[in-house]
């Protein structure tokens, strides 16, 4: 599982060597440090743990607290002191900011944006040392915050290779965060390495799927939507689904329906059903008329046959539901659906539209609306959907049921309501 372990230390070692060679590695603890404890400014030893040394900066902090400075002046002096601390003794300052014992007292200082930027800058100067401090557990439950800063600092400083090298030895939460950060702006080579990590040290990660989504998002950007490039050689179904979903949400919204169908046809068959479901949740152009044309185009291009019947029904249903708004005019909507040439798909769309209408008009008005629709297949399909949302046993329900002309449909509605009555006590008409 941890096949990354072999090559990672090599990479790390080479960087250590390079840093020493260039004279860029500052010796830790270069700030003055003196033993002390129980001073004001830092907490008493009890919850602080094992014999830490606090240097001159701590004493200055104590001095400031006791000084006559007030308000903004005090805050300015405190900030200046803490910034100096960060620059001279990053290890000590990180401990002050993030060790559980002092975190709360210095949180508002450390979260201030200039201070955070300074911390990141310093972290990028001594990345490997900081990573060791992080791994040592010094920061307790705040470890994730520090490694987040560290990852962001290094990536911004062009040292994503070090972050990549750290992923296998990071904690679970860190792995997910670091991979997310890396993916955001990864170049092709880094992204390929992230992909290898997904099969290596991250193969059993509980949030691997989320990381695959981050990976897929960047992969689609780098491939600029080229489907062949995306899917060739990728066998992992989770990653394939992520590539497909990300491709859909990047490439398709805004396109006219014919063009969407044309592009969907580029997708490999195994991901099409999932992709179509993803598409159902996107903001499609042209609302309900657009949905109707897309459903028709799908049939024209024989794309339905790549999906199972249930998958198709689910996706069509979602698409209609998502595009439905409670102001949609039923007669206009039914007119659009009449253009769908596949009768089965048309039936699903009509029924879903009826359900959506019924759910948003539980206060009645059905008979009035039915009056505006010409009898026939369109109205029946829509009406069946509305009836499925009704509780039954009232006058409106009885009248509407009477208007449903298609006997088969009527039978199915009754059966489904019996199976899943909207209110207790629904009974089929005898």
């Amino acid at each position, binding site marked *: 599982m941890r096949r990354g372990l072999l090559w990672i230390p090599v990479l790390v070692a*080479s960087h250590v060597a*390079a*840093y020493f*060679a*260039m004279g*860029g590695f500052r010796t830790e603890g*270069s700030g*003055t440090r003196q033993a002390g404890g129980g001073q004001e400014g830092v*907490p*008493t030893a*009890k*919850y602080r743990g094992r014999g830490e040394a606090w240097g*001159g*900066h701590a*004493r*200055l902090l104590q*001095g*400031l607290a006791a*000084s006559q400075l*007030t*308000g903004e*002046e*005090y805050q*300015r002096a405190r*900030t*200046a*002191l803490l*910034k*100096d601390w960060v620059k*001279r003794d990053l290890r000590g300052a990180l401990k002050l900011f993030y060790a*559980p*014992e002092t975190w*709360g*007292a*210095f949180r*508002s200082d450390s979260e201030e944006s200039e201070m955070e930027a*300074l911390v990141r800058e310093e972290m990028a*100067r001594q990345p490997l040392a900081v990573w060791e401090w992080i791994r040592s557990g010094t920061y*307790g*439950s705040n*470890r994730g915050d520090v490694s987040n800063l560290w990852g962001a600092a290094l990536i911004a400083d*062009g040292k994503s290779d070090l972050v990549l090298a750290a992923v296998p030895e990071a*904690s*679970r*939460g*860190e792995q997910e965060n670091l991979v997310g950060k890396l993916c955001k702006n990864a170049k092709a080579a880094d992204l390929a390495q992230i992909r290898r990590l997904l099969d290596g040290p991250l193969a059993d990660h509980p949030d691997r799927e989320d990381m695959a989504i981050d990976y897929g998002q960047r992969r689609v*950007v780098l491939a600029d939507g080229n489907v062949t490039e995306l899917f060739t050689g990728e066998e992992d179904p989770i990653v394939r689904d992520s590539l497909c979903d990300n491709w859909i949400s990047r490439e398709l*919204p*805004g*396109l*006219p329906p014919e*063009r969407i169908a044309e592009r969907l046809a580029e997708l490999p068959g195994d991901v099409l059903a999932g992709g179509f479901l993803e598409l159902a949740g996107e903001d499609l*152009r*042209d609302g309900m*008329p*657009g949905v109707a044309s897309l459903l028709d185009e799908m049939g024209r291009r024989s794309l339905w046959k790549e999906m199972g019947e249930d998958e198709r029904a689910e996706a069509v249903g979602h698409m209609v539901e998502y595009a439905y*708004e409670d*102001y949609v*005019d039923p*007669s206009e909507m039914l007119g659009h659906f009449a253009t769908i040439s596949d009768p089965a798909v048309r039936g699903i769309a009509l029924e879903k539209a009826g359900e959506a209408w019924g759910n948003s008009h539980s206060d009645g008005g059905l008979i009035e609306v039915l009056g505006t629709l010409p009898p026939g297949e369109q109205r029946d399909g829509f009406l069946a959907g509305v009836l499925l949302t009704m509780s039954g046993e009232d006058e409106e329900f009885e009248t509407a049921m009477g208007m449903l002309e298609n006997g088969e449909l009527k039978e199915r509605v009754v059966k489904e309501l019996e199976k899943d009555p909207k209110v207790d006590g629904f009974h089929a008409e005898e």
Partner: protein
Amino acid sequence: MLLAASHGAALWLGAAQRVPVTAGEAAKAAGKADGGGLTLQALIEGSRQPEKAGEEEEDFDLRVQKAKDKIPADADLGALVRAGTVDMEAAMSPETVAAFGLWLDGDPVAALRFGGKFYRDHDYSEFDEELKRYLERGGLPKLHELMEAVPLAREQLINTASAALEDLSRAEALQVAGRLKSPTDRLELLKSVMDNGEDVKGNLSQIRGLLDKSGAAAFLQMLESDSEATGLLDEVRAAGFPEAALKSFEASIREREEEDSDSIGINRGNIDAIPGFLRGRTNSDFIEVLQIPGIPINRNNIDAILDGRGAARESLVGIAIPENEVVFAAATQGRMGSQEIYAALKANNSNGQAGERDMVRIALDLGIRKDPAATLEWLRGTGGDWQSLLAEVIPDKRRDIAPEVLAELVTDAWKGGSPPEETLDRLSHSYARWFEADGDACSASIRKLGDGALKTHLLEKFGMEATK
């Protein structure tokens, strides 16, 4: 090795370019060695002068304009934009934005093909200003062509077009919308440009003509919430909106008229929503508190109580002593521990205006984050119901005390007994986040806790063996 060399170079450059950042630091050179050269005196002197703000940042738009003048006429603008957007972590440069602007002027379709995708892939909106400028200077009449030519940029185009139309006449907006092919696009543009009664007045019949039935109903639905809706009724009726939509519009106007507006008062609902630090008081206590002379009961101080923050808070809990302002300010700056805060409150309470429990609770609340252990030691010595006071403040301390420190504190405070259920829940909640991110470290921390009700609770919560 190339990579390593560049790192080294970056480090060297960084060190060479370092300049003093703060006033305090600037002064430190004169001081004697302490904290690595910094002295208290230097800090205090430095604090009197506000930090010198950096050179006045030149307006970004102006920098874009200047950059445009520098780009040669024969430059490959697309290449410049692509090169300037490779590193998405870096801030967008004025030069890149300038190149995009010029690209739009010369070949809007090509620029939008890039810009539309870019808009989807990143959160950056720097290009929008240029697109808006392009639309304002002659691009708007071509909006419909651009939408057809680059459907991927549709969302960006509609958003920027509506921004560009903000300052133009309504007639122009209707004209631009009217050229769009799709009724959905027309609806979206109109909804965002003419989203209030004042704008639509006199234009409703034309708007209706640009929309299909569903779109017309959607537009009318948007107007239902407008404060001018009543004044639009006749025009809406005359414009031929779909009947169902019209009915709903009329009903919403009736409803609004019946609504008893602006009826926010103190009631059972908001009294009950008061945060932890005031819990345990009855409503009549509360009314007493609110009737401190000079503090009128109004929406603002009710909000302050509901937030559990704000300047009115200390006054409202019964310590309206002006001298305490300094104490509260220093306490919120993390400068004083609970014991000091308490001493200061006590010293300012010569006429006995503040109750003992209130003073202890405020000192506890404001000072605990500075030093939890010392606070507990002090609190124990205050006598009274110190455990229940502690339990009262703990729920609000999520961002002030790390879970492992709080856990030790709670274990210590309730040695031999059990903290309230709420305290246990608050802790297991904090630990849960840590457990998920770093199970091993979190488990180890739980195991290290002293035996007691909390440890048992956490072990059980996270399905851990008692001994391991």
